[in-house]
Structures are given as structure tokens and as C-alpha cells.
């Protein structure tokens, strides 16, 4: 991600794509509008994880919990209190980031697999509480029929809202990665010892990245509620966390937009293969194994490697 701040070709392409997607809803069936919305929500989630795993090199195994915390925060504020909707929409990501701060504060003391294991156990505790606290969170039934403010009453308006928030988040994440902070984060991923030696506070940078990543996961959770109007404990289950990992892998760890592509592939696969067979996870599993064997840098990473640098530097980044 080094080099000039804005690649004009890529920026132009992104902007045109954004405009096309913005104009799309009147021309396509409702179902596709919904699926596209789901793809946007999931891709924001995948990008927030990739900030931590792909660019930060941290084993954030249980990222879905922050998505769930954001979603549940909105759902609970909207159903249990009479606060205005914007409080809920801002409160969701903030609560997710706060949870991320608390959990991350413990985790950054450790590295690699120990980091991941502590992360899983702390997050599983949150899952278990949400799953069981029937009176407050609805337990395994979840909460359904969450009231939305009037400007989000139709599917199309939700679509626009989600797309615009996604575009803003996309832009913000890009700026964060291009900032000195982003470069430092990637340097920590590649060589934590050397970073420490030149006077970088590794833990503090990692913790900051976790707070940012979980904040964006919380935004994705809010958008999920906007789209679905319901929450359920599977949003915080570890299987979803690993699915996000797969999306990042599918798209490419070391690319910026790769996780979006991975999320799009996964959601599309689940929707369209799921129509023909109930065994879509079998197909996902086989695809994943093929990917690990033949295309470890992901679809986007592969094409970027072919078209741009002919894989230069890719190999070094793959094996830190």
C-alpha cells in the first residue's frame, strides 16, 4: 500500500462503480437489491477484519462478536428505549469499539496463536451471555421487527443508506491505511521486533488498530440491522468469524479491496448455490481448499500480481 496517495485510474474506477451501484435499484428486482445490500454489509465487515489480520498481522479470530455487538446495541436501543435513531446508529459502533478496546487491551500483551486464543475465549463469553440472557437480548430467538426511522422505511432507501455509509467507510479505511499510522501498522506486521527496536510502541499501535477495526465492524452491524431489521446470536458465533476470514482469503489478504470481492463471492455463492443444493458449504469448502493450494494470495491478489507488479514483493509479504 505504499507509494502515491491516490491512484487516479483506481479512484476513477471506484467512483464510476459507486455511481452505477447508486443508480441500480430502480432497474433490478427487489431480491437483487437485498442481496447487494447484504454484500455491502458483509464486505465492510470483511474489510474491518482485514485491517487487523491482513494489514496488522494480528490473529483476530473472533471478529464477528463486534459485528454482533454493534447490531445488538442498535436493536436494544431502538426497541427498549425511546432514544432517537441516530443515537442508536452512533451508539452501535461506539459500543463495539469499546468492547474491542477492553478485549484488545488484554490481547495485545500476547502474540500470534495465544493472542487468538485469548481473543476467542473473551469473545465467546460475550456470545454465551447474549445467547442465554433471554430477558434482555431475547436469547437464541433474537430480536425481530426492529422499528426503523421513516427515511429508512423502504428497501431502496435502506440500500442507498448502506451504500453511502459503505463508501464513506471505504474512503476512511483507505485514508487510515495510507496514513503514517497505516504504514507503521504494516511495518509491525512484517517485523515487530525491529519496530520495537526503532522506538515504535507496538502494543499501542495494535490496540489502536483493534479499536478502529472493531468500530467499523460495529458500523457493519448497524447496517445489518438496517437491512434485516432483526438480530440473532448467530451473528456472534465463531463460525461467522471464520467465514469472514475466508472472505479475506478469497479476495486476498494484502490487497485493500480484496475482502470486498471475497465477501461478494461468498454471499453470492451462498445465495445462488444455496438455491440449487443445501450442501453449499461443501462447495465452499472445496473451493477454499483449491484456493489454499493454488491461489494463496486470493483472487484479487492474483490479478493484481499478474497485471501490475508481476508478483514482485508479493512473495516477501506472504512469508513475513
Amino acid at each position, binding site marked *: 500500500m505504499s507509494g502515491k496517495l491516490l491512484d487516479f485510474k483506481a479512484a476513477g474506477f471506484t467512483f464510476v462503480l459507486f455511481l452505477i451501484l447508486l443508480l441500480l435499484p430502480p432497474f433490478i428486482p427487489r431480491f437483487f437489491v437485498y442481496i447487494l445490500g447484504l454484500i455491502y454489509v458483509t464486505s465492510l465487515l470483511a474489510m474491518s477484519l482485514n485491517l487487523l489480520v491482513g494489514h496488522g498481522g494480528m490473529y483476530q479470530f473472533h471478529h464477528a462478536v463486534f459485528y454482533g455487538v454493534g447490531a445488538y446495541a442498535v436493536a436494544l436501543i431502538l426497541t427498549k428505549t425511546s432514544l432517537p435513531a441516530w443515537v442508536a446508529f452512533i451508539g452501535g459502533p461506539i459500543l463495539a469499539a469499546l468492547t474491542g478496546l477492553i478485549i484488545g487491551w488484554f490481547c495485545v500483551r500476547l502474540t500470534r496463536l*495465544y493472542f487468538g486464543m485469548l481473543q476467542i475465549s473473551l469473545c465467546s463469553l460475550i456470545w454465551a451471555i447474549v445467547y442465554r440472557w433471554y430477558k434482555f437480548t431475547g436469547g437464541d430467538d433474537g430480536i425481530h421487527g426492529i422499528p426503523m426511522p421513516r427515511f429508512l422505511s423502504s428497501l431502496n432507501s435502506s440500500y442507498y443508506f448502506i451504500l453511502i455509509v459503505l463508501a464513506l467507510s471505504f474512503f476512511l479505511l483507505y485514508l487510515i491505511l495510507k496514513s503514517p499510522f497505516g504504514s507503521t501498522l504494516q511495518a509491525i506486521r512484517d517485523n515487530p521486533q525491529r519496530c520495537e527496536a526503532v522506538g515504535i510502541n507496538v502494543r499501542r499501535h495494535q490496540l489502536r488498530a483493534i479499536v478502529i477495526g472493531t468500530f467499523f465492524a460495529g458500523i457493519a452491524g448497524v447496517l445489518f440491522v438496517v437491512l434485516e431489521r432483526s438480530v440473532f446470536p448467530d451473528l456472534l*458465533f*465463531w463460525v461467522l468469524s471464520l467465514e469472514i476470514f475466508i472472505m479475506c482469503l478469497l479476495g486476498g489478504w494484502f490487497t485493500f479491496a480484496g475482502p470486498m470481492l471475497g465477501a461478494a463471492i461468498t454471499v453470492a455463492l451462498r445465495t445462488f448455490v444455496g438455491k440449487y443444493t443445501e450442501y453449499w458449504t*461443501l462447495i465452499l*469448502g472445496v473451493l477454499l481448499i483449491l484456493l*489454499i493450494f493454488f491461489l494463496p494470495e486470493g483472487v484479487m491478489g492474483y490479478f493484481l500480481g499478474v497485471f501490475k507488479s508481476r508478483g514482485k514483493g508479493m512473495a516477501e509479504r506472504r512469508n513475513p
Partner: protein
Amino acid sequence: MGFLPNIGPAEFLSQLLVGFSRAMILFTVCAGLSFVLGVLRVPNIAHGSLYMIGAFVTFSLSKSFGGSSGFWFALLLAPLVVAGISLVAERGLFRHLYQREHLMLLLFTFALALILGDLVKIFWGAEYRSVPAPDILKGSISILGASFPRYNLFLIFIGLLVAVALWLFVNRTKIGKISRAAAVDRDMVALLGINVSRVFAGAFVIGCCLAGLGGALVAPTVSITLGMDHTLIIEAFLIVTIGGLGNMWGALVGSLIFGVTQSLGVLIFPQFAIVFPFAAVVIVLLLRPKGLLKSVW
């Protein structure tokens, strides 16, 4: 104990024993997971799926053998079936990936878990299945006034047997010693002229075999269904972590903590019983982030 109403010593004791027997199933599975983690350094997510396959195979075998003795055949054969599956997976796919990063290996085992989960769905369907316990283990006996199912006593016995057998295997046999050495320094072991790839295959199969045994043991006590792999594997990972990654005795300690806090949690606060073990894990990890016992990593 004013805040714990209606709990007599008999209930406490029987619940404690239920916790122990649950811990023994967990230990059987986690010892395998821990062994694989220690020797191959792979957090094997497919371990839970193999446990589920063990349970389903036990169901099919004990049904086709029929009668009271069917379960005993199943108990012997199910781990072998699971071992066969894991051998194919290891030699066919897994061994080509040992040089990769942990994250890739983790995702590979997750892919394997997805595939195995759907294969179970294809073979056995989504219905709930149950396996009857053999006649000799039916009913319950009373210990100090507490009524206690015989099958659970059998589980505790088997768990102790597995612990002793594993101890003998790891400490008293040559292949056990080699695999312990490979866990510490695989390059050095390879330099001594030992085929490390084969040691890895053996360790993987033994670990997975224990998952199958755990699945067979749990079969008569629960309803066997899809999704039992998902709940188990997360528990197993946490147990292995609090015990110390790759430490078999850690797996025993972790299983006891997990099983007992859960069963006593039922007495205190039934609705939140599953929260207790997770809370216990968090407390242990905050005090000792690298686990209670020494990790082999």
C-alpha cells in the same frame, strides 16, 4: 450458603459427578486436539467434525449390530473409522501444507470441517439420533445418598484409562518420545534421520482417533445431531488453551475446570449454566495468559 437455596449435599455430589463424567469426554477429545497441536502445531478445527462423525458412526454401527453388544463393537470400530478418514485427509492433502503459515493451516482445517459437516448431512441427514446405552450400563446406583447413572461412572473410568494409556504412550514408547521431540524441534529430529512426515501422520491419526472415541463415548448421553461439532470445537479450543497449548495434562486440568464449572453452574443459575465455563476460562487466561501448565510451544 444463603444464596444457594434448595441444594442439598446429595444434589451437589451427583452434579459434581456429572461434571466429572462430562469432563472425561471433553478430556478424551481435547487430549487428541492437544496432541495434534503440540506435534504438528496445527489448531485442527476439523477435530470437532471428526468427533461428530464418531458419534454418527457409533449410531449406525450399534444399530446394525443390534442388541446390547452393538454399542461395544461401535465403541471399538468408530475410532478406527475416524482414524481412517483422518489418515486419508493427512496423506492426501494436509502434508503438502506443513510449510505454510498457521493461518492457512487453520483455514484449511476449517475448509475440511465444512466439507465433513456436509458429508455427515448427506449420509445421515439432519434428524436427531440417539444411541441406547448397553444394558449393563443402564440404570443408576446410589453413592452416599446421591443417585448416579452407571454410564457416567463408566465414562469416568474410561477417561482415567485414556489418561493412563496416553501417559504410557508418550513417555514409555519410542514413537511417543519421537513425537514429543518433534514437537520441540522438528528440524533436529529430521536431522537424526527420522522420517518426520510419517511421525506427523501418526500423531495426527492418533489425535483424530481420540476425537472419534470421544464421539463414540458421548453418543448414548446426548442426542446426536448436526452442529454438535460447532459447540464442541470451541469448548475444546478453550480447554486446550487454558491447559497450555499442546500439554496433555493441561487438557485434563482444563476439561475438569470446564466440565465441573458447567455442571455446578446448573445448580446455581440454570439459565446461565453455559456462561460459567466461559467465565472460568477468561479468569484463568487473565491470570495466566499462556495456560495453567507449561506449553510445549
